[in-house]
């Protein structure tokens, strides 16, 4: 009977570990489906520590079950058990074994900590001040939107982060208003974007894994930053190195947005009156950070989502422009551009949806 019980518990626990090992959740979001070296090394630590912990739990459970089965008091039993003070031998055992287990975890922990903090490549600059052989992205977190600047390429974009696969991508992280945290679960752990200074780290995106998730990863803000913290999502578009370079070239070549059709032209006019103060429509926005108060819309037509969370449809776009507050409470766009008529909004939508860089 006792034996069967142990077995049953063992199987249940193995089942749980199995669940972890096989990984659950969606490949574009889950930390259990690592999509790059960084995530993988963290996942390995997760598995190692889980195994240790399951071992600990099993030992505790076995002792626990034995005690509960063997030493219950029978009805009317008035015997007084022997009063034992303790046992040095046992106590040494359960001091030393945990220490050993912890060393097994501590060593890879320390090694990985230093590995993941290695951003020396960012400091190697060539004579123009460009980073020599690393791709650097400056991430700036703002109340509910993300800006991605490629300083060496002279490109600014927002909301959708485009990265090359199979190489290390280095990030400078900062925030312009309150603290946020930059997290792409599938690609690796998070790093805070502080208002006080710049944090550096790197991630890596595996091309095969990227395909599994349709070349799209979800990114999240992982630090409470206000009412719409839950909605401060962004998307990551991994591209093969050559595609990435093509994309960068396209981006750089955009001078002025060119749109077609009356509606779009009219929209452009409205936009230039009401919106251009905050939103730029070209990727080479050379204004200082403080002036860049809103997402860069140069690639808006190719976005995955509107404002990070709404599906990319014309109807949603109009709804958004009409009343952003309804979709993202506390956002900083609300109430900054006066009343717009319905036709203005239609026109704006037509204009915005044509803002594309690649699919011309």
């Amino acid at each position, binding site marked *: 009977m006792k034996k069967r019980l142990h077995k049953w518990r063992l199987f249940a626990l193995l089942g749980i570990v199995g669940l972890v090992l096989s990984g659950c959740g969606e490949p574009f979001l889950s930390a259990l489906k690592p999509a790059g070296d960084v995530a993988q090394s963290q996942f390995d630590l997760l598995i190692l520590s889980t195994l240790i912990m399951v071992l600990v739990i099993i030992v505790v459970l076995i002792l626990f079950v034995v005690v509960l089965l063997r030493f219950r008091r029978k009805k009317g039993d008035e015997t007084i058990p022997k009063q034992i003070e303790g046992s040095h031998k046992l106590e040494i055992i359960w001091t030393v074994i945990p220490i050993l287990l912890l060393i097994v975890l501590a060593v890879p922990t320390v090694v990985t900590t230093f590995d993941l903090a290695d951003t020396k490549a960012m400091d190697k600059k060539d004579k123009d001040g460009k980073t020599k052989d690393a791709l650097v992205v400056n991430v700036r977190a703002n109340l509910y939107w993300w800006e991605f600047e490629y300083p060496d390429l002279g490109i600014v974009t927002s909301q959708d982060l485009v990265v090359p696969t199979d190489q290390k991508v280095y990030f400078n992280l900062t925030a312009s208003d309150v603290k946020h945290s930059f997290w792409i679960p599938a690609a690796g752990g998070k790093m805070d974007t*502080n208002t*006080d*200074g*710049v*944090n550096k780290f790197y991630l890596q995106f595996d091309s095969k894994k990227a395909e599994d998730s349709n070349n799209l990863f979800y990114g999240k803000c992982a630090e409470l930053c206000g009412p719409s913290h839950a909605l401060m999502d962004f998307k990551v578009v991994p591209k093969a190195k050559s595609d990435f370079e093509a994309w960068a070239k396209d981006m750089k070549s955009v001078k002025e947005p060119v749109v077609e059709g009356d509606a779009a032209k009219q929209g452009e006019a409205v936009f230039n009156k009401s919106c251009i103060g905050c939103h730029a429509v070209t990727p080479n926005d050379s204004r200082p950070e403080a002036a860049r108060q809103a997402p860069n819309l140069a690639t808006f037509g190719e976005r995955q989502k509107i404002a990070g969370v709404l599906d990319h449809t014309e109807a949603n776009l109009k709804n958004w422009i009409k009343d952003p507050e309804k979709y993202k409470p506390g956002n900083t766009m609300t109430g900054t551009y006066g009343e717009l008529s319905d036709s203005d909004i239609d026109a704006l939508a037509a204009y915005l949806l044509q803002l594309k860089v690649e699919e011309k």
Partner: protein
Amino acid sequence: MANEQSNSANPNVDLKYRRKKNAEEMKHQVVTFVLMIFFTVISFIAVAMEDFSHWFIKPVILLLAVIQVVFQLYYFMHMKNKGHGTIALFLFSGLAVGLITVLTFLTIVWL
């Protein structure tokens, strides 16, 4: 510490002895005080001279401050006397927590 009996059988003999001891202790206190003033003056002079490197001055005046504080605690506040074990334990634990805090704020506050 539990039951310090303060009065002995013969109060008058005891009194004289106690007076003497108190006076002696007071003398120590004055000496302590003079030393403290001396250390303070050294610290101020060292800074006033302006021709030591701050790598040298800072540790020195900190050390002098620590010595002074030890004087205050052990002489003025009587921690040298018996029965202050518990107190010392708690005070030094407090100091330890405080020191780690200061150390942290000097090293890892600015990212």
